[in-house]
């Protein structure tokens, strides 16, 4: 197997404001994101040779081609649940690395607010075997992990809630510094701890919201990148791991980690040559669909030892000015989760940080950044990790 390292460059990116974009369709948001990316790359939309299009709600590749008026170029619709957008990026990278294409677009979009959704639902039970219970929602899958985390590490409910509150407060704070975020207001730990219960022990502020949005990246062969710009960003590693329900079928699975994240990060770290992620990586955009998810991801990505995430969180290690900034743009917590767009929104932040263009959120001279998505649920998930870095 060959590594993807330094074969693909990101030369332009776009990202819409995330939120209740009542006045914009999925197509409108794709036009906005793709136009920004082309302008950023200093190129015309017509130069795009192929597209990988991530969405969970649109059923075909056609809305993307139609929106962007792409003239008979290949468009591949990609879907991999919460990792959909990074899956578009990953496959676009392979298109470039194979040498078949020089310049391609990876774009993700989701228009959830036209569907009357108040929270992240689950896959519909239509046509099922009739054993689907009420209250099936994403929160319950991650709440199971939170309950288990308490039992496994001997955390009290109060200790857990306080730690989770710190994660939500941090991400909301980062979101206030980001004009593209859906929610741009501070919350307090008390608000998070006392919020109405969604799926015990997770409350309202432990969950991310539902938003519309689109984000995209223009990729080219690394050796062509200089033609477009000097401050391009390189893909250093890609990882994807899909679980086979091991956590549900095998009682020894501890349910306090997400093996798919561990495996995906190992693939990406190996490609990027990363040995000590906590000390080598400057910032990470991770899948904080729920506060407990972010906490456990810290352990799964090797940012802290097993069972120590609460301690690291309490010490502010992952704050914007901490040792390793996690979700500097505000995360899913502030952006909501337009499923097909989220991964590329994360990449957008890393890209801007690498270029020194992250405004009030800017970290000092970052060299390596990571994005992470997690689809499905603990016990049977989809883990996706992307490593991005400066050119040497």
């Amino acid at each position, binding site marked *: 197997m060959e590594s993807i390292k330094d074969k693909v460059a990101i030369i332009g990116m776009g990202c819409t404001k995330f939120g209740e974009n009542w006045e914009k369709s999925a197509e409108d948001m794709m036009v906005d994101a793709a136009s920004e990316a082309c302008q950023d790359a200093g190129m015309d939309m017509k130069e795009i040779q192929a597209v990988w299009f991530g969405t969970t709600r649109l059923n075909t590749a056609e809305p993307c081609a139609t929106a962007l008026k792409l003239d008979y170029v290949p468009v591949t619709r990609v879907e991999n649940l919460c990792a959909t957008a990074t899956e578009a990026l990953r496959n676009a990278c392979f298109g470039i690395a194979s040498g078949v294409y020089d310049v391609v677009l990876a774009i993700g979009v989701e228009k959830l607010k036209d569907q009357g959704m108040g929270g992240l639902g689950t896959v519909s039970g239509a046509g099922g075997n*009739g054993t*689907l219970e009420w209250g099936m929602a994403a929160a319950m899958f991650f709440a199971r992990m939170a309950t288990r985390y*308490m039992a496994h590490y001997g955390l009290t409910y109060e200790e857990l809630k306080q730690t989770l509150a710190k994660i939500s407060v941090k991400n909301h704070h980062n979101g206030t510094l980001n004009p593209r975020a859906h929610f741009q207001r501070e919350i307090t730990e008390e608000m998070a701890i006392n919020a109405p219960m969604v799926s015990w022990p997770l409350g309202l502020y432990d969950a991310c919201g539902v938003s519309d949005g689109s984000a995209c990246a223009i990729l080219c062969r690394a050796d062509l990148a200089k033609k477009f710009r000097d401050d391009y960003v390189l893909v250093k590693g890609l990882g994807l791991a899909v679980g086979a329900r*091991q956590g549900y079928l095998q*009682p020894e699975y501890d349910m306090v980690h997400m093996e798919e994240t561990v495996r995906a990060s190992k693939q990406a770290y190996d490609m990027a040559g990363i040995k000590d992620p906590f000390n080598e990586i400057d910032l990470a955009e991770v899948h904080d669909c729920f506060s407990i998810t972010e906490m456990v991801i810290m352990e799964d990505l090797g940012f802290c030892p097993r069972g120590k995430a609460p301690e690291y969180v309490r010490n502010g290690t992952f704050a914007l000015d901490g040792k390793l900034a996690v979700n500097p743009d505000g995360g899913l917590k502030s952006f909501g989760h337009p499923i097909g767009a989220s991964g590329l929104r994360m990449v957008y932040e890393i890209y801007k940080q690498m270029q020194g263009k992250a405004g009030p959120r800017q970290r000092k001279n970052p060299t390596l950044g990571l994005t992470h998505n997690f689809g499905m649920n603990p016990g049977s998930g989809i883990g996706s990790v992307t490593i991005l870095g400066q050119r040497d």
Partner: protein
Amino acid sequence: MSGILSYGAYVPLRRLGAGARSEKAVANWDEDSLTLAVAAATDCLAGIGRDKVDGLYFATTTPPYAEKLAATTAAWAIDLRRDILTADVTDSLRAGTAALKMALDTVKAGSGRSILVTASDLRMGSGNLDGGFGDGAAAFLVGDKDVIAEIEGSYSLSNELLDVWRAGGAKTVRSWEDRFVFEEGYLKVLPQAVKNFFEKYKLSVKDIDKLVLYGPDLRRHRQMVGELGFKPEQVQDAFFDKLGNTGTAFVPMLLVAALEDAKPGDRILVAAYGDGADILLLKVTDKIKNVSGKWGMKRSLASRMMLPGLADYQAYRAFASSDPEQFGGASASVIARERDEIYALHGVKCLTCGTVQYPPQRICTRCHTKDNFEPYSFADKKGKVFTFTLKYGGDIPGFARPMVDTMVDFEGGGRALFGMTDMVADKVTVGMDVEMSFRTLGAGGGIRNYFWRCMPPRSSWPGKETK
């Protein structure tokens, strides 16, 4: 001689009552006549090989479908053989004793070695009638060898009378005026049947050790005992203050209670009423001494959880009688494909590496061997809660909120996800013991859905009064 090989009973955990005298057992919102019958059958068949059962007669006036056999669903959930006779016996309060009589005759005729009979009901009455109704189930295994009670005689009387009825499509039972109902029905027909029975077999009241007697309520029950000339100590307690009138299941449940206290040689007279009367005489044998470990009636009645009030009961009933068409989602072909996994709670055991897994897989989760499994039942396995969450979703009806979702690790291997029932939500903990219970599920598409939930062991509720 044909007779009863084994018995079982099920009284739902929940009780409703303004005062101790009017307490009654009520089914939880996820129980119906079919699930009650499965629970009683499970008690009846404890320690008995399912492969010995040659038939299932399912008696009720409240079957889940007007057209669609309940006995087949029950047989799947009880995990009986497929090559058996299954039949629903319905439309009368005598359906329980009729099914028992039919099973005794089936065995006597030699067309089956042992037949399982269940009687269960979950009735709603209009107006004041409902206050006296309770929910419950009984089950008997009938055979012709090593019986614990043998049938010595029987007599049936058919009587055409509109005293108590439920019209097709109606949800509640109605009755004609009280004086007519009792004087022209119960108080006239049942004594006649008992008299005819005694004449037929040349027996009298003094030959009977225990009378198991139907009564619509405590007052009429007492009145009938006097009418028939029995002494109070000869009469099986009818639990009007604890159970309520459980319809089709009532007399069978009282028979279970009588068998629990019976000694070898006792003669039990069973007198059931409804569109006529059924009289059965049973003689208890030495084998009664071998019966042990049953829930039966005594332990079932002692284990209870009080409902806070009528509102919850009414919400349960409104849900139970709601139109199944309102729910969406289930596919008949998917259910058919997965019926062993849904109804019998079958997983698989890998014949290569021994790993137990649920739901059934084609390729082993551990050793990756393809299609080398044997069925493995989880229905009778105990387990522990590995983790759980309490769900507060807006789609959950108030009476069921929060719903408890659990991940269960089973003794002997295997892990699976289940909703929990008959629990106190805020007392659920990681590591608590659970056992499995067959229940209705609230989603469907014109289909009544059934699946298993876990619950705290019934033995953890003895005599507790918990809100």
